[in-house]
């Protein structure tokens, strides 16, 4: 029966850990090369610049929009449809040393409005000055660092430092591959995507912690077998939960991706990629790292004795 699909599994996950390592290494390599060669296609939030979204009453040709902009003395713009053929997105690169920045959007809209005889509606304006963009890039990197640091400390306190390192390796793995994909396909990387990447950090950890929790429990409970066998048992016991949760999360993310609208598109995509990679890494990367660092049963035995001694101290 279908319901039995995920019960009583005895998959030798760790037996495949070398293949998994090669797979991860290849993915990371691709990600690093993509990041180094192509770089991230940073959105307006980070680069600065002006973006104007307008909605026409009827479908509009991009040529006529461009003509309208040229008449208004604004030839150097990128014009594209956004979602439907009635919506148009106009991008203008930040002008170095030009102070008119924030007035530009007004000029764009008034020339479009003049060209379309008022049959156009201003839907969105985003103007980000270059200095703000630079700050965001810096703050974004810092935020990522703080999140990783905070989690490292928490896991080290709750488990053991090797588990903390293991979870952070899994985490960096997930983040690298996710943003690597954004670099590879030149998908715009804007502020919401950064938020999604940070949420991926939380999610990836969530998965890893559940596995680690079971490994710790089994190290204490199961007397037979080496570390690899215990980890295998733990992975088999948690695989159902890992897959079910990832599946429900992917369900809602697909809903968001399909129905959430253009603005939320890359955000949902980042999360989908992150969840898929995070699920894989919680099974293979985190556990493999822990094995490589040589965790043994002794490391995870309860520390009750010490506590008892402390209590009896005067």
């Amino acid at each position, binding site marked *: 029966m279908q319901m039995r699909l995920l019960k009583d599994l005895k998959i030798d996950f760790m037996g495949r850990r070398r293949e998994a390592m090669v797979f991860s290494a290849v993915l990371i390599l691709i990600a690093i090369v993509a990041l180094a060669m192509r770089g991230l296609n940073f959105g307006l939030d980070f680069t600065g610049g002006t973006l104007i979204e307008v*909605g026409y009453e009827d479908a509009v040709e991009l040529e006529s929009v461009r003509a309208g902009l040229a008449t208004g003395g604004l030839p150097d713009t990128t014009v594209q449809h956004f979602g439907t053929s009635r919506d148009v997105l106009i991008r203008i690169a930040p002008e170095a040393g030009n102070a008119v920045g924030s007035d530009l959007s007004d000029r764009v809209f008034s020339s479009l409005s003049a060209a379309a005889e008022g049959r156009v509606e201003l839907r969105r304006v985003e103007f980000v*000055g270059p200095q703000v963009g630079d700050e965001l890039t810096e703050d974004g990197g810092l*935020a990522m660092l703080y999140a990783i640091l905070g989690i490292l400390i928490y896991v080290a306190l709750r488990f053991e430092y090797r588990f903390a390192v293991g979870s952070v390796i899994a985490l960096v793995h997930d983040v690298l591959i996710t943003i690597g994909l954004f670099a590879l396909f030149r998908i715009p990387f804007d502020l*919401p995507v950064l*938020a999604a990447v940070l949420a991926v950090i939380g999610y990836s950890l969530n998965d890893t912690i559940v596995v680690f*929790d079971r490994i710790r429990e089994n190290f204490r409970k199961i007397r037979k077998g080496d570390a690899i066998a215990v980890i295998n048992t733990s992975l088999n016991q948690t695989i159902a939960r890992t897959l079910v949760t990832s599946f429900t999360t992917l369900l*809602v993310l697909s809903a968001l991706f399909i129905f959430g609208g253009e603005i939320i598109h890359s955000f949902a995509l980042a*999360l989908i990629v992150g969840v898929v990679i995070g699920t894989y890494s919680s099974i293979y990367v985190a556990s493999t790292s822990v094995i490589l660092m040589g965790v043994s049963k002794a490391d995870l035995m309860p520390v009750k004795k010490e506590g008892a001694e402390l209590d009896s101290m005067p």
Partner: protein
Amino acid sequence: MNRYPLWKNLLILGVILVGILFALPNLFSQNPSIEVTGARGLEVTDAGVDEIKAALENAGVEYRAIERREGGKLLVRFATSGDQLRGQEAIEGTLSDRYNSALTLAPDLPGFLRTLGLQPMFLGLDLRGGIHVLIDVDMDAAVDQALERYTGDIRTLLRKQKVRYLTVTRDRKRVKVKFRDARTRDQAEALIGTEFGELVLEGGDDGSAFFVYGSLTPTDEQAVKRFALEQNITTLRNRVNALGVAEPIIQRQGERRILVQLPGARDPGRLKEILGATATLEYRLVDTGHSVQDAVDGRVPVTSKLYQDRDGRPVLLLRRVIVTGDQITDAAAGFDQRSGQPAVFVSLDGQGARRMRKVTTENVGKPMAVVFIENRTLTRLVDGKPVKRKVRTEEVISVANILEPFGRRFQTTGLDSSNEAHNLALLLRAGALAAPIEIVEERTIGPSLGQDNINQGVRSVIIGFILVVLFMAGYYRVFGLVADLVLFVNLVMIVAVLSLLQATLTLPGIAGIVLTVGMAVDANVLIFERIREEIRNGSSPQASIHAGYEKALSTIVDANITTLIAAVVLFSFGTGPIKGFAVTLFIGIVTSMFTAILGSRALINLIYGGRRVGRLAI
């Protein structure tokens, strides 16, 4: 076994009921509305209500209701946002000199919810439409201006004390005074030190000439910058209020930035005009030698000028200006020490102070007036087309008698209330921007895009929710249905907490809710998988339920805390929209722990607890 005590069930039920109550206001639609306030914060009178009704009816605009609101405001509700726009045109077109109108969304709540003071979620700009502007204050210019003032003050001081200097100039971050010989320099240094104790003085020479350098201490420089930022915030707030926007947000962001958010505002061009307006103050003597009535009748003396105060009463002032606004360095509201009356304390720069002292010494006992002057470009709709014109407003904001001569610092009394004193201080400080500003970020969301965002967001939440509900029911059967029910309760709780805290809901915030819907079932999945495991290991159904919840608890807490850490980092780093995502993620995780652990357990206990169970439908 597996029974909750009555109090625990009641507690859970109670929390859920309170949650439903707080979430309830979100079910009612929000009417596109116009908030009407009298110009300069005056109350809208009954006559005003009739005027506005007439204006709307003349323009043929249908409205749903006109309600009185706190603070003498008026709320006009419309059925559609098209009517709302035409309504605003009608009010602006005929009554704009007496009323400010602001577009807003007003929830159509039944009486009992309104009595309880409950409100729906506060929608962010990306959902309700509006303008977001981040303004950068040029701090270096603020410091330069302060140094320029000192340059002028020192020059006049030395001239008055007959100390022979060669030049006084601003040399980057300090004031440089040049002398021919060391003796004059030392004499000047002592003088400057006494008069401007806050400056750090330093001597020097280059062989042929001798110098005194004066610079601000780091503390003073900070104070100058802080003052510049605060004054600019006050100025901008006053201007934005004049613009007439419901619920504007103007706040300091970081060391040198000001955030201005105007929900419902549609015209970024107009906002920039207003923010860039220049306003100033002048102090003038009242012309007591001539009749005001004569002047009103058209016989204005050549030495005087006729003004009006804020209530429209005529005031005759002398043409000669004593002090202008850019000589005011500070203003604060307080109380007169002798009479206890509300007062405004004003500080002038050196030049202004000397002039003030001279004039007041000669005019003790006579009235003096404060004139408020504003230049701005107004855009009005004439025959449906925007027409720009420059407007200069000049009005007397205060007239008071000179009690004794004063100079650098003085107080203005004769105000009606401490509130008015506060406003005057604000106006005095708002007179001019303390430092140049530049808009470094602008985000405008049109109302139709905002509505699209709401629709798309809500649609993704509903579809995501239904998919998860179907999957859980199919996979875990009765237990899945329990998880579905608590997932729904979780959604209600998230909405309740967001409404209660009035935290801003943004589009990424909705995405956060969607994500939590997916992740909230995680706790239940962990528990149910444990229960299945226990059953496989041969435990009885009751023991399996008990052990499943018991063993999964620490895992759930550990797993959720890591996500909470990420949410907190997101919140502390993030700007507007990202913060919204962090907030809903955080709230969603916390409420999901309550509903998924306690709520689902209570239900499972009610279904299976305290009786013999053959098999669990899991």
